[in-house]
């Protein structure tokens, strides 16, 4: 990443937007769509839809299961997709597991841990949890990186602990020494908050967790689509992300894991394609990544995701990052001019991802969102699957604008102008 990466010029954004048919849509009485909900799911460029379709129309077959020409072509395309996506995060191919979404990826690791409970086979002790052991998460997590660990704790008798949120929307690391100990078997943390845009110091946190022997699982859903991520330097043992948030199709996610760990980690979903030998009595497993990909794989979606990665590579992830950063600054300074709006999360100028959440006193986020929607502006409202975070912030719900490569400065201005209708409609004092 060159630090000098520039936001896209107007002409460049216009070209980018040309790749997304949906962006020409009119919504609600003819307003042009202003889509500021890419944190929930991004749109998909034509290249991605074309890649999926081409696969179905030319090479469709069950991969890793056939010896005929189509099956060979499909398998080649699927494995090439794996290589492309792996390369994007600096990983070797065989460390990349395709799942259906990040939620499955995180559940995969959590269930693999309970499958490592001591039985007949000796299992790698790093995956074995029991009473007295601890799982450390944070109060900032998306439910997908919280509930699976609550459930792992329930299944194994381990204890769930968490790093609390600080007032400024960062993690309160003051008590970290007391939270990390030899008992900590797993540390799960998000790289970028899906609500606040906070960028967590994952590398530093991972080093501290590794020092006590914990496995480090990073939720990279909101980082991989928005900033360069390199697993070689990140410090994590596993990362999880979803294709649909990074210009890729729905129905495909990724789990990356260090090969040394994937080798010894027990499987999760079992069935076809992930076995080595099967008798009625027992089965043994194929090597990773196949061990974790049971059933006929979602090859079309993996191939679509690879096309998304090529698309990102073409426009440049560093430029996407710079572009979203500039838009976020524009939004933050616009909001700062409106005293009735309170932005949550890191102050302007601090590192942040492309999500900005705010509240308006006495107006519920859903009502704010409805007014914006009425002007064609799509944002997300509610707890954004991060309910404990909202409780810690003392707000029931927030309004979130989240950015992607195709957003423009003019769209930020449309959002701000639509927002200005809110005080009048709901009788909020504009000076408050």
């Amino acid at each position, binding site marked *: 990443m060159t630090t000098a990466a520039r936001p896209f010029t107007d002409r460049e954004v216009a070209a980018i937007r040309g790749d997304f048919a949906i962006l020409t849509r009119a919504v609600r009485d003819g307003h042009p769509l202003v889509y500021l909900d890419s944190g929930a799911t991004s749109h998909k460029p034509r290249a991605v839809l074309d890649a999926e379709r081409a696969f179905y129309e030319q090479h469709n077959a069950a991969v890793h299961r056939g010896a005929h020409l189509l099956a060979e072509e499909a398998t080649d395309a699927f494995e090439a997709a794996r290589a492309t996506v792996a390369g994007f995060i600096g990983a070797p191919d065989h460390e990349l597991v395709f799942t259906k979404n990040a939620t499955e990826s995180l559940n995969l690791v959590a269930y693999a841990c309970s499958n490592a409970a001591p039985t007949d086979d000796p299992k790698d002790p790093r995956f074995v949890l029991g009473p007295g052991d601890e799982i450390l998460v944070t109060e900032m997590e998306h439910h997908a990186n919280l509930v699976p660990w609550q459930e792992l704790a329930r299944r194994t008798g381990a204890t769930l602990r968490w790093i609390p949120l600080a007032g400024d929307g960062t993690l309160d690391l003051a008590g970290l020494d007391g939270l990390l100990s030899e008992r900590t078997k797993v540390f799960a943390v998000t790289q970028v908050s899906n609500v606040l845009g906070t960028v967590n110091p994952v590398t530093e946190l991972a080093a501290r967790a590794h020092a006590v022997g914990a496995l480090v699982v990073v939720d990279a859903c909101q980082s991989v689509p928005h900033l360069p991520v390199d697993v070689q330097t990140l410090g994590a043992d596993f990362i999880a992300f979803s294709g649909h948030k990074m210009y890729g199709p729905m129905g495909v996610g990724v789990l990356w894991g260090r090969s040394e760990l994937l080798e010894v980690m027990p499987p999760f979903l079992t069935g076809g394609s992930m076995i080595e030998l099967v008798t009625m009595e027992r089965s043994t497993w194929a090597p990773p990544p196949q061990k974790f990909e049971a059933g006929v794989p979602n090859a079309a979606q993996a191939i679509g995701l690879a096309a998304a990665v090529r698309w990102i590579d073409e426009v440049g992830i560093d430029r996407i990052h710079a572009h979203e950063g500039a838009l976020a600054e524009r939004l933050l300074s616009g909001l700062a001019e409106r005293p009735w709006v309170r932005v949550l999360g890191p102050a302007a100028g601090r590192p942040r991802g492309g999500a900005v959440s705010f509240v308006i006193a006495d107006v519920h*986020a859903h*009502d704010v969102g409805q007014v914006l929607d*009425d002007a064609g502006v799509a944002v997300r409202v509610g*707890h954004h699957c991060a309910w404990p975070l*909202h409780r810690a912030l003392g707000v*029931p719900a927030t309004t979130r604008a989240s950015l992607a490569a195709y957003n423009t400065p003019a769209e930020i201005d449309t959002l701000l102008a639509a927002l200005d209708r809110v005080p009048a409609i*709901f009788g909020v004092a504009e000076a408050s």
Partner: protein
Amino acid sequence: MDLYQELILDHSKQPHHAGLREPFDAEVHHVNPTCGDEVTLRVTVDGTGLDGIIRDVSYDSQGCAISVASASVLADEVIGRTVQEALDTFAGMREMLTSRGKVTGDEERIGDGVAFAGVSKYPSRVKCALLGWTAFTDALIRAGVDAQALTDHTTQGVTP
């Protein structure tokens, strides 16, 4: 936008019969999981049949303008009425809200509830307007109103 009728905004700013009062026969707590909003609602009802009289409805509503206003209108419409009348109003509200803009609502039947007609065009907000109402029917059951009679009655005339 036809969603935020003056009447809805007024009720949401100054909800009628708000606050939790004693005495009460039953209290329920309902959550709208899609947004996390909550309502605590109490009823006092004389009798257990459709002819029972609803003496009071008091509530604490944490939510959007639609859900707060809906609870307020609910209280206005049902306090002092029979269970049967209240359930009629609920059935009329639900029919209108789930009609996707097709049913405008009968003022005779649902009173100020007609102000919520615009909600039916926004499927994700229908739950907001129904939150108080489902809490209310649940509370009636817990207060001893015959559940079967209640269900039979409220499912009449409802767009499926």
